[in-house]
């Protein structure tokens, strides 16, 4: 259960930061989405950015246009009007998300960074499987893909989705981040840190454990692919991704469609009451799977 009162704090003279919960939970994330959607609908003058995060959110504003006190009152009002999730309905894109696990590219990247890792003698997959009590990496991958994930936050760099598995707490996988961040991570790498999957949109630094790679992009600066016509980034908070293990043959086939510009994500839209997902994650997962297989 999350606190009844959010914690409001100032980020200098242009930001207000609001923490709904210290720890991560689906409930906290859904509350963040409900509040930030409510705020977006109000088009508050002087507010330039509303940024939902995992269990907190942040607003950037111009104090010359709206005083911090007045803005705070808007935030508190949005909080009050969304306390009861029974009346909240969310529309999300359910996306089939193929992943090539234990691929040669992220394996090479992580082998180069063994001096920065908790366990220099294992791969990231072997290490994460072991500390989560799995007997094999195959069983661990099966657990990673057993239930869908909600995109609980986007950011870091353009388009990076944080994805949180819709599963009971006791089934949640948790892994530490690298001891020191890597300087190199391949584009589209599938990483895991804390309780989150992240997919790296572009090549760069990174501190999550590397498990695989996505054949499909999540950032397309030139908006070449049809799924990127509206925005150069694909992920949106509230998206639901079902990660599906694929083999090298399917990976290459998808890459070819990305290269020739015809790739499209397989997307279904669902509208749901968040309480259903919070109270019965297994039932929600089954419903999502049914929708994807329709």
């Amino acid at each position, binding site marked *: 259960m999350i606190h009844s009162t959010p914690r409001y704090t100032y980020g*200098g003279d242009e930001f207000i930061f609001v923490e709904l919960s210290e720890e991560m939970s689906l409930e906290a994330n859904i509350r963040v989405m409900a509040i930030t959607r409510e705020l977006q609908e109000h088009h508050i003058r002087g507010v330039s950015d509303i940024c939902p995060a995992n*269990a907190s959110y942040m607003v950037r504003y111009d104090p010359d246009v709206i005083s911090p006190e007045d803005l705070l009152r808007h935030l508190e009002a949005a909080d009050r009007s969304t306390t009861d999730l029974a009346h909240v309905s969310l529309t999300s894109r359910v996306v089939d998300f193929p992943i090539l696990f234990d691929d040669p590219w992220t394996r090479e990247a992580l082998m180069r960074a063994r001096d920065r890792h908790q366990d220099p003698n294992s791969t990231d997959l072997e290490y994460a499987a072991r500390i989560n009590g799995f007997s094999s990496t195959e069983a661990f991958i099966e657990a990673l893909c057993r239930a869908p994930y909600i995109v609980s936050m986007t950011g870091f760099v353009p388009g990076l989705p944080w994805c949180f598995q819709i599963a009971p707490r006791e089934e949640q996988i948790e892994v530490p*981040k690298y001891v020191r961040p890597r300087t190199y991570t391949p584009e589209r790498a599938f990483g895991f840190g804390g309780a989150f999957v992240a997919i790296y949109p572009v090549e760069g630094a990174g501190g999550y454990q590397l498990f695989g790679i996505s054949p499909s992009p999540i950032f397309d600066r030139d908006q070449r692919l049809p799924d990127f016509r509206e925005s150069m980034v694909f992920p949106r908070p509230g998206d639901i991704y079902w990660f599906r293990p694929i083999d090298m043959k399917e990976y290459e086939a998808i890459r070819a469609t990305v290269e020739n510009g015809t790739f499209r994500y397989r997307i279904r839209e669902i509208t749901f009451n968040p309480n259903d997902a919070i109270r019965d994650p297994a039932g929600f997962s089954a419903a999502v799977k049914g929708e994807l297989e329709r």
Partner: protein
Amino acid sequence: MIRVVKPGLSTTVQDLGRPGYYSIGLPPSGALDKYSHTVANLLVGNDPAAATLEATYLGPELEFRADLRFAVCGADMPAFLNGQPIPLWTAVAARSGDVLSFGMLQKGARSYIAVEGGIEVPPVMGSRSTYALCGIGGHEGRALKAGDMLEKGDLQTRAPREGVAVPEKWRPNFAEAAELHVVPGLYVHRLTEESKQEFFAAEWTVTPEANRVGYRYKGIRLQFVDRPQPFGAGSNPSNVVDCGYPIGSIQVPDGVEPIVLLNDAVTGGGYATIGTVISADLDRIAQTRTNQKAKFVEIDLAEALRRRRERQTRILEVESFLRQS
């Protein structure tokens, strides 16, 4: 037209930034020292939103291919036109064929070169600023290279007068150690009370890792309050459940080397941020460089807003002075 003869160390096209895309992970970019950027624009009669060139540490060499007025503000980096010294913080006329070059940096870190009308590149999501990590905005999404040709824009609002200079009292002084005012907050309660006090008492030194993404400082080690980590945060006591990072916010991974996040920073992540440098002092950070000293000074929000107004008043005074002279 302006031809880039030499690009300098890192010269990029910047304006006031690209607000509104923070939630997708796109930082605002824009001039790091907005005061110098704005005053350079005002000197040549531009709207402050016009794009200037931001040159870091080592200035570029530029050949003007048209008669053009320009101004250089910011760092004390001597500027030359055809080898002859020209004054900084002053509107200067160049003839077609003239070459602007720079000498050794004396104080500060970044020079802003404004040309009348502004630097014209295609705006991306409402801004001409360069965000090099993803190749967005600016000149082809990157720092300038030798041989690049730059166009002049039409964001001029009035004709500038040659030779008019910004009086000394409105020029920032980059000599002494930087005093950076901070509103404590966000996750400051994660630090021990003693470490919080030490953070504000210590003298910090800018490390070589200081760029448009952020500035890293070395000094003392800070301690976080020991606790069982909340679910999802990660195991280090400096970890929190991943959240948004305000521009100017200070994170301290593992308690060592605080990092102040700047205009091209990552928009979020899993480190506790302990406070935010006020917007008025981001200009000052931009003009510090490796091995320079800085102190963080604790203030409250009311004082931050007072300093914000003070900075705006200064810009209005400069504008009004330039209009009348």
